[in-house]
């Protein structure tokens, strides 16, 4: 770890239980109907978020599971149940998807709003995979608000290439493209938060 964790974060009282890999056999257990449809595709404002997941050899990974967690279009943090039994109307802010056999993933969601004025909107992404011994976190920033992106403390602390890797690309049809690279040349920036140990 190159940087110290936040200095004023209080120490943990209990030692955390370690994580382990999701393994190869989650496919019949964790995916569920409409898991990746945070909103219905027909809803105005619905956005496709998609990309590839690759390994250190640049090969597509067919056995990764991704989850996103995000505010709504107005930047509100949602606290509504119903993620596992989607009614097609309630936006819960959370979704899950297993990548397909070609290592590609898709979510149907909304563009997240800024949670505070002037903040750069982003989606939290968690990555699980066979071969990955613990989950990884990253942020998917929206590309539009360049002033907010320029002021973002995390992005400002990164070199240009790493910074670019955390900002999604807006495609011609309005989709957001965000590729995840677990290792190598284009390795995604993965995050550590205070109070993990």
């Amino acid at each position: 770890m190159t940087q110290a964790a936040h200095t004023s974060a209080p120490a943990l009282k209990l030692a955390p239980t370690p994580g382990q890999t999701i393994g190869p056999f989650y496919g019949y257990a964790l995916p569920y109907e409409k898991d990746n449809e945070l909103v219905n595709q027909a809803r105005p404002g619905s956005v496709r978020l998609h990309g590839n997941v690759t390994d250190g050899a640049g090969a597509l990974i067919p056995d990764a599971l991704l989850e996103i967690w995000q505010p709504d279009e107005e930047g509100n943090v949602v606290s509504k149940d119903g993620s596992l039994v989607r009614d097609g109307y309630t936006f819960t802010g959370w979704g899950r998807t297993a990548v397909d056999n070609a290592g590609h993933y898709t979510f149907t969601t909304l563009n997240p709003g800024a949670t505070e004025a002037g903040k750069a909107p982003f989606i939290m992404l968690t990555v699980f995979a066979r071969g990955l011994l613990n989950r990884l976190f990253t942020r998917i920033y929206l590309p539009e608000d360049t002033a907010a992106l320029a002021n973002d403390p995390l992005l400002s602390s990164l070199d240009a290439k790493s910074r670019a890797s955390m900002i999604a690309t807006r495609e011609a049809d309005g989709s957001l493209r965000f590729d995840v690279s677990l290792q190598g040349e284009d390795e995604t920036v993965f995050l550590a938060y205070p109070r993990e140990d």
Partner: protein
Amino acid sequence: MSTETASSKTSNQSPSLDPAATAVSQESMSAEISDIQVGYQKSLAAGVKAETQPRLDFAPYRSSLLRHPTKNLHHVDPETIELYSPAFGERDVHTLESDLTIQHNGEPIGERIVVAGRVLDGDGRPVAGQLIEVWQANAAGRYIHKRDQHPAPIDPNFTGVGRAITGKNGEYSFTTIKPAPYPWKNHHNAWRPAHIHFSLFGTDFTQRMITQMYFPGDPLFSLDPIYQSITDAEARNRLVATYDHSITSHEWATGYNWDIVLTGSNRTWMEDEEGDH
């Protein structure tokens, strides 16, 4: 030696084993693991902080070679969305989903067990009303998954998937069948210790985790690269349930206790800090 002949004979008879993937012996795998452990013990002795999580870069687990980040994780202070978690409730999970033995018409084969415990955060506070998901092999070590093709029977009365929402005090309880160890292709004659996969949410999404619960005294612990990827013995031991006779019920099921501690919530102290300014 005769044992070697016997084991290669076994693998020739097994339709699911890929000889290329199983070339490394358990002996050399165990030596690889031991070298890493010795290195860790030295760093502990030199005053380096004890590790609490698995290493992402752990070569004995071969699938990790190309799937671990090579850059350090980037430390960041959580922002708004990262200080909250999705909400789950009665709408999402039926109470019967925590009983994995009643999902079909008949009783599954195997040793009926209850696994019960609490989910706490790093401050010891119960994580209430949150989702827990579990999945596991059956009593023969076989998963209901098309990628598990090893020659052990499927149980038509056991799927091995359960869900629950934690109670007010973070408590949960699953009724299930004790899973068996199963072979995998990491190295020659590799077997996973019996385990149940657990998926957990906290009050902050940064506490999200997936892990595996093991059973006490499993003779496969020292041989398993996934379990041993947690280099610290005390930390590894946190994944092992305890046999608990108070959970065992008369003429029905034996009981195991397993409490899960998530990483620390950042919401309270960050709000307090903001209040100070």
